[in-house]
């Protein structure tokens, strides 16, 4: 699949890369006095900003959703077989599954947000959960969906329900990344799973979770030994840092000691640095995947900056969370 050549799509993406946000633009965005000023700057950059009426945070959220949709619509327009990008979309599917299960088992119908960028339509997901007919879902999703629903139904343990679905999501992402045959997508899957495992281990260490929980939550990947990670997590955060010092993620230890958000930023930056060579690849799937990842990264960064500005956080505090850019 990775041998397929995307001459039209990659050339078009090269033009689109010109409108990606640069580090210097983010510097300017960090310096805005009001969120409205930030919206104007983004509008000048071609971002879809709705005019007046709603609150600023609503306008920001709508803008971010519109930009996310725009990215996937563009890729969908150029690529016939979108399955190659499943590794980037599966997260949305499992988020939707979680939302559908919780929506079905709670009386409130408000506050549930489904992502339209998954591989399975949210309505199919809702129908599967409502009718308990999981056969209409992709095969790898059926078992965790049924198990998570039973757990929530009979034990009301929302956390365990989340753990089952999150682990299934990580395993699906890892498998989808390797299945593409594309180095960059396999690497994305690997880094996504590894960083999620480390985050889970740190959270578990801080909340005193036992080995059973860790075994249920950690997903396997090539660059981490999850048995060692789980053992370290039971011992504490320092033991996790000692363990990862001997892995490919040795630098992450320092970030973990600073704060969870510093570690998350480090993980996102690692992915962005890993995809940067795609800027010079002329016609494989890599540059397309890199563009999607870069767009998701800039949408996440704009969300961080704009939320910080809306909530009047100090500039330094926002700056610490800003991700590196692809261009």
């Amino acid at each position, binding site marked *: 699949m990775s041998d397929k*050549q995307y*001459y*039209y*799509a*990659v*050339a*078009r*993406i*090269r*033009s*689109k*890369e*010109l409108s990606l946000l640069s580090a210097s633009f983010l510097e300017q965005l960090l310096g805005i006095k009001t969120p409205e000023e930030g919206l104007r700057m983004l509008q000048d950059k071609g971002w879809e900003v709705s005019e007046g009426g709603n609150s600023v945070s609503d306008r920001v959220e709508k803008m971010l959703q519109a930009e996310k949709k725009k990215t996937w619509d563009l890729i969908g327009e*150029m690529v016939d077989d979108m399955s190659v990008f499943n590794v980037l979309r599966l997260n949305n599917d499992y988020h939707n599954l979680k939302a559908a299960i919780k929506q079905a088992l709670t009386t409130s119908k408000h506050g549930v947000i489904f992502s339209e960028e998954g591989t399975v339509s949210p309505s199919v997901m809702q129908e599967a959960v409502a009718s308990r007919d999981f056969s209409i879902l992709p095969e790898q999703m059926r078992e965790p969906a049924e198990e998570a629903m039973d757990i929530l139904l009979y034990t009301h343990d929302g956390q365990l329900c989340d753990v089952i679905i999150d682990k299934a999501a990580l395993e699906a992402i890892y498998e989808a990344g390797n299945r593409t045959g594309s180095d960059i997508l396999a690497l994305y899957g690997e880094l996504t799973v590894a960083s999620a495992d480390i985050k889970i281990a740190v959270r578990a260490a801080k909340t005193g979770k036992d080995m059973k929980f860790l075994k249920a939550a950690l997903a396997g990947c090539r660059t981490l030994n999850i048995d060692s990670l789980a053992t370290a997590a039971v011992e504490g955060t320092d033991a996790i840092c000692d363990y990862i010092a001997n892995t490919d993620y040795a630098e992450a230890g320092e970030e973990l000691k600073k704060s969870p958000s510093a570690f998350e930023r480090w993980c996102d930056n690692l992915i962005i640095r890993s995809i940067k060579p795609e800027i010079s690849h*002329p*016609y494989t799937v890599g540059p397309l995947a890199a563009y999607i990842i870069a767009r998701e990264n800039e949408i996440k960064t704009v969300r961080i900056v704009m939320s910080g500005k809306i909530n009047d956080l100090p500039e330094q505090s926002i700056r610490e969370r800003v991700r590196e850019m692809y261009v």
Partner: protein
Amino acid sequence: MGIGTALALAGAASAALFAGIGSAIGVGRGGQAAAGVVTEDPNKFSQVLILQLLPGTQGIYGLLIAFIALSRLGVMSGAPADLSVGTGLMYFFACAPMAFVGLISAMQQAKASVASIGLVAKRPDQFGKSMIFPAMVETYAILALLVSILAINGIPT
């Protein structure tokens, strides 16, 4: 018509055939990339068109070799010469450089052209430099063209 004449015709045909196939593939790939750039920025049409056309020259060189060979064989005048097997083989191998180098160089040049189209998409001011990369591949098609012309002209009539 004897085997010698048939071999000579096969050589002439292969020069046009393989070099033409290479150019068709190359120009096709370049066209896809060019269309991608023009979708986003129609002003770059003329720049990407030139880059798209660069792998097309091998097809012209193949046609030229085929034309020279057919002329010398008398096919163009409607009176093909009856050649010995040895002379026919000489024509066949004389046309071979253009046939094979034409095919490979056009496909490789297309890769360089596609990459250069990507370069122009991002940095249109570097158009001049972007032409040089695929043009370097052209060198080997021209060498093959020269060898084929010299070889055909060196075959005793």
